[in-house]
């Protein structure tokens, strides 16, 4: 136990925790959306995220920036990030929709048992990860440094870097946009209807197949956004890098109450904070244990997560 480190680094740890938590939250939203509608753990979502990291990397590569390049000017940096966000989100979204078409839709048509979906998801996860492994010779790839490393501001021991602030702001923004989309638009109403009762919704004229594809697309878009910020923060990616983030994000979704959009956000941020504080207190190597212990203890007392499952009733 190292209380000194925790107290000394508390403000810093809070910002790193929130930034990391934002990435978890964005990925967790993908799990939660799919789960809310299909009652399915989309095991391959971590690979959808990983494809986003590579899409961003390749985009930057085509624009002339690799890990050895010098930092671009601020305007160029913002442009690079914006382009990467669009490309990665679309790419991840595409992979997610493809995944749904190939690995899940045929099963749904045959009304397969839930376990078959899970195994199909695992199979898809193997295929996606290993295909990227073959494509990249299983090498770890460095990400160009884009945003300046000079802190935005320093107050005492507290520093906030541009990456951290940007991650948090974008995650919150995306979250509000999604919340609005699900609760206010026609598409959102369709999603909620299918989540509440798929068969009745179908009888009422909701196109279930299209709603499900939309849900996967949304999850993929968010994973792509998360991927760009993961790249900026972590500085590297590799073909098997999605697994751990996927695991954490799924835990975050469960923590907040799987199927619940706001739960995913809160779960993600909370998990990020708990990990950061826990790492300072017990050492970085215990991070994952702390995350899981918190999850287990919470589930003992609140068996459906912090906010409970409720995509169907997620109206504002």
């Amino acid at each position: 136990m190292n209380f000194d480190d925790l107290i000394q680094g508390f403000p810093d740890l809070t910002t790193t925790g929130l930034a990391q938590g934002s990435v978890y939250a964005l990925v967790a939203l993908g799990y939660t959306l799919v789960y809310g509608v299909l009652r399915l753990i989309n095991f391959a979502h971590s690979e959808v995220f990983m494809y986003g990291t590579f899409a961003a990397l390749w985009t930057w590569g085509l624009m002339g920036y690799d890990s050895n390049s010098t930092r671009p000017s601020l305007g160029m940096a913002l442009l690079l990030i914006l382009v990467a966000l669009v490309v990665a989100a679309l790419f991840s979204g595409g992979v997610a929709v493809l995944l749904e078409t190939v690995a899940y839709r045929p099963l749904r048509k045959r009304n397969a048992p839930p376990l078959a979906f899970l195994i199909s998801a695992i199979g898809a996860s193997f295929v996606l990860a290993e295909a990227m492994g073959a494509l990249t010779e299983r090498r770890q790839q460095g990400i160009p440094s884009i945003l300046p490393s000079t802190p935005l501001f320093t107050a005492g021991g507290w520093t906030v870097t541009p990456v951290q602030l940007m991650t948090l702001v974008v995650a919150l923004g995306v979250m509000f946009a999604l919340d609005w989309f699900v609760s206010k638009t026609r598409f959102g109403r369709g999603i909620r209807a299918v989540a509440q009762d798929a068969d009745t919704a179908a009888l009422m004229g909701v196109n279930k197949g299209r709603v499900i594809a939309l849900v996967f697309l949304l999850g993929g878009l968010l994973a792509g956004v998360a991927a760009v910020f993961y790249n900026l923060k972590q500085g590297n990616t590799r073909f098997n890098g999605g697994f751990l983030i996927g695991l954490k994000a799924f835990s975050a979704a469960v923590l907040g109450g799987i199927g619940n959009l706001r739960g995913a956000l809160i779960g993600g941020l909370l998990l990020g904070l708990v990990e950061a504080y826990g790492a300072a207190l017990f050492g970085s190597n215990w991070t994952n244990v702390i995350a899981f212990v918190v999850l287990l203890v919470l589930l003992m007392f609140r068996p459906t997560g912090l906010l409970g499952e409720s995509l169907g009733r997620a109206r504002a």
Partner: protein
Amino acid sequence: MTTEPIKQPRRGLHLGDRFRALPKPARIAAIVVGIALLYVLPLKGFYENLGFPIPVGSGYLPFYTTGSDMANVLFQCGYYILLALGLNVVLGYAGLLDLGFFGFFAVGAYTVALLTSPDSKLITEYNWLESPWPWLVTVPIGVSLALLSGVLLGWPTLRLRGDYLAIVTLGFAEIIRIVAKNQDWILNGDRGIPSVAHPPGTWSDGSPVFGILDWSPYYWLVLTVIIAVIFLIRNLANSRVGRAWIAIREDEDAAELMGVPTFKFKLWAFAIGAAVGGLSGTLWAGQANFVNSATFSLENSILVLAAVVLGGAGSIGGAILGGFLVIYLPEWLRSVGDVFGWPHSVDVFGIFRLDTSPTSLRFIIFGALLIVVMIYRPQGLWPNRRRAAELKDRQKEVAPVE
């Protein structure tokens, strides 16, 4: 629904039905021969005399894994089959989704390693033991500890349902692995525990039966254990306990209302599954010689899960087939690729170098196979008849809405 013909034309071989139609002596003879056949599998000579045409000089043998030692691959298949049998009780019978099954394997393996290695810290640092124990003594201890950890984990968590249980069990396996990795005081982390004991026995010339070079005895041992475990599980499944499990799997609330103490039986399933998983771990440790935290990664738990569902949840035959396939298939794909000179990398327009070595492609093929099997045989390759019938019911009940 009345337009549906009453008797559909039957397709396929229906080996199961044909087998059941045989007279009893023939059935027993077939089983005995089948088992005898299993015992000769690690011998290379067997494959050379199968009578298949072999391309001269290619080094290829049908079904034989040239890439790594066949007996070794079979032994791995063996302990995965045991794991699949254990998980089959939890998942297939009682319907509890356990994503961290490998944790129990770790408990079994570490128990053996700690008690039998002369380099174990129990002996060198804490002096709890005078001298290392023989392997055979530690097996029941390992199995009991795994069973105990199953109960300890199940007690608080089995009240959770479905996917929540999945994440909790997953967390449990990760915690075991990380704890094993992170601390030096007993399990010795990544440095691990060397010189773990092997099973007892010597040949007539004094050399140990369970040596280091020849893996066949280990395979024979694990095969024997598998046969014993199958008998135990079959009996259990046909008893009151087994019927209670099926009731829980079908509809937990209905079972509870009908007076089945669901929690108790769920705990039973969890504990028995854990014990079989632990047994598998003790056998593995008896061979492995060296145990460290690197072996118990989460991917293994997922592989076991894939084995059970691929074979057919709820079916013993399915668990065996699945456990065999998940290990053997990737290995076999690799040897076939090596033998026939599959290119190891391909240049794509000079931009990418695509790594096409069989070693790296085998999991793509395996993953695609999982998807295909789930689409065309969601009940698994070798389903339990009752379970397959349940699924058919389900398909009829709910007409697909698109």
